[in-house]
């Protein structure tokens, strides 16, 4: 293992932000794994930390295939993590909306540019990331449909679901999108946890990543059998929204199988605790996303269910 400072940004009042990279193996730029681009992505950083732990052992055992280089970057935005913010401390910008970056531009454009210079051109780009809505999501691998995605490769993670999503305007500035533009095979891995770390889930993610690297001939690793992935798109998701607002009490978790008519959640009056609304599963399926907050708005996305017997496009 070789540790390197990939980028450093000086701050007027704090110690400088240093982006650490951990290299394993030597040779072709084969695989790059990026963790927390945002200050609340603790689980994303933790998965990388656990991955580094395992890769150290594998390297010592000679399990990294010759001529292949792996780079792991556990965190980019710990400047925000240390002060409990999700986005950049001074201007609230999101580094994951700044790629490919601009070395003469604004601060977060410079961070993105400095980072991207070091991580572009890898054959495989893997980003651990979090969902834009506050809530819990079923672990899955996501690929952007830019016409040159590779579904078969995404299945090599052995995760239960591969989600193929058409890009929206803001996607053009994400890391995943720009990796693809620079001809990397790019994958975004979503975990159920974000702000808190969860060891069993992190170890499963490490296993998925190692399984993928082994499939691609980067490491020799006896992988545990994963899932035969279902390929799904937004069209397979059924949204359950609230008609009222108040205290939110949920009964189902991501990954659970539900049947049409099952009670998913209740909305209670905040002052009298009376049930004002009950949310039922509109279809048979699996809980894909669930709002996490104990207070809920009207018209909020409370659940997203993956409808059964759909999927695989």
């Amino acid at each position: 293992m070789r540790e390197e400072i990939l980028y450093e940004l000086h701050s007027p009042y704090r110690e400088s932000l240093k982006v650490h990279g951990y290299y394993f193996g030597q040779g072709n730029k084969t695989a790059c794994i990026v963790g927390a681009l945002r200050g609340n992505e603790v689980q994303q950083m933790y998965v990388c930390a656990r991955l580094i732990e395992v890769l150290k052992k594998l390297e010592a055992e000679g399990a990294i295939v010759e001529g292949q280089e792996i780079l792991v970057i556990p965190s980019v935005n710990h400047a925000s993590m240390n002060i409990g913010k999700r986005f950049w401390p001074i201007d609230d910008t999101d580094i994951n909306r700044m790629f490919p970056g601009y070395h003469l531009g604004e601060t977060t454009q410079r961070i993105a540019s400095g980072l991207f210079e070091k991580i572009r051109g890898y054959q495989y780009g893997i980003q651990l990331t979090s969902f834009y809505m506050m809530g819990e999501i079923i672990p899955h691998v996501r690929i952007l449909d830019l016409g040159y995605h590779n579904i078969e490769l995404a299945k090599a993670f052995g995760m239960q679901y591969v989600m193929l999503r058409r890009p929206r305007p803001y996607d053009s500035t994400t890391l995943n999108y720009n990796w693809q533009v620079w001809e990397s095979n790019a994958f975004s891995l979503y975990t159920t946890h974000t702000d808190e770390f969860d060891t069993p889930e992190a170890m499963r993610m490490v296993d998925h990543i190692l399984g993928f690297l082994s499939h691609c001939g980067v490491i020799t690793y006896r992988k545990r059998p994963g899932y035969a992935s279902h390929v799904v798109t937004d069209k397979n998701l059924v949204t359950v929204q609230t008609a009222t607002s108040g205290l939110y009490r949920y009964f189902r978790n991501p990954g659970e199988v539900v049947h049409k008519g099952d009670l998913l959640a209740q909305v209670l009056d905040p002052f009298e605790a009376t049930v004002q609304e009950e949310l039922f599963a509109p279809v048979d399926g699996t809980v894909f996303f669930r709002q996490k907050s104990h207070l809920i708005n009207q018209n909020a996305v409370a659940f997203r269910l993956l409808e059964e017997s759909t999927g695989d496009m």
Partner: protein
Amino acid sequence: MIERVIEVGLPVDEKLVIVRNRLQPDELRGDERRIAIVTGTHGDELEGQYVCYLLNDIIQKNKEHLHGIVDIYPALNPMGIDSITRGIPMFDMDMNRIFPGDERGATAEYVAAGIIKDLSGADMCIDIHSSNIFLRELPQIRINEQSALKLLPFAELLNMDFIWVHSAATVLEATLAYSLNQIGVPTLVVEMGVGMRIDQHNGQQLVDGILNLMQSMGIWTGPVPNVRCPIISRDGHVGYINAEKSGIFVSQVDHLDTVRQGDVVGAIVSPLTGEVLHQIQAPCSGMIFTLREYPVVNEGSLIARILGGSVQ
């Protein structure tokens, strides 16, 4: 006529409400043209608040000159303005990056979809912004080059100092203006002043321009002051100065000053050591139309933009 156009229940005994004040003649013919004035998408930008007040006041005191519909939306992000939050509180996203929204999406996306629905069919929309808390801006209109041909004739009527025709960026497709222009509502984005402050001169200047535009649309027959002729520029004539060091920016020019290439614009200094960390020189000649107002800078923070500058 004040209407609650969008309502979303919040968890505890309150609703998020987007309100609109519709000013129209007492007798309607049925073929009135409609202009919408929208602002407050970013909760820390307040210039539009004064513009809405002033326009309301002038029109209501001179109702006999009104021959069309003026819809005033002072706050597209009311929770943000109320809590001095640029984005939407509880939703970590810039509201001007979620249009056209989604009725089946998160609260903010639902609200965005409702806003588009209410504005659709208008003959003109003015979307008023006031920079952010970091930068002071010359009163200007920003137009995406794709819609320049269509929008320039309207923009020239608005009494602004400057029209900036900028290149099309995919991310900007998620703005309110882009969505409205797409559905056939010509929308002009105004940027002026600085965040968290109101400059009454800027407000008056824009109101004069809006009345002028309303007159050209047949909505207003009241007196309209003479309007100025704006400078129109494309990206190539805008020079940028970004901080090369982190520290405290001390300006040596005023906003709207003219500088020559090589002139000292200011310095980045260290309060701890008393050093000048970086002496900032103008990279090109021209007018400082954007100037940093907030002194703390990181490497990369925008310090100034110069109009008339050479291609960078």
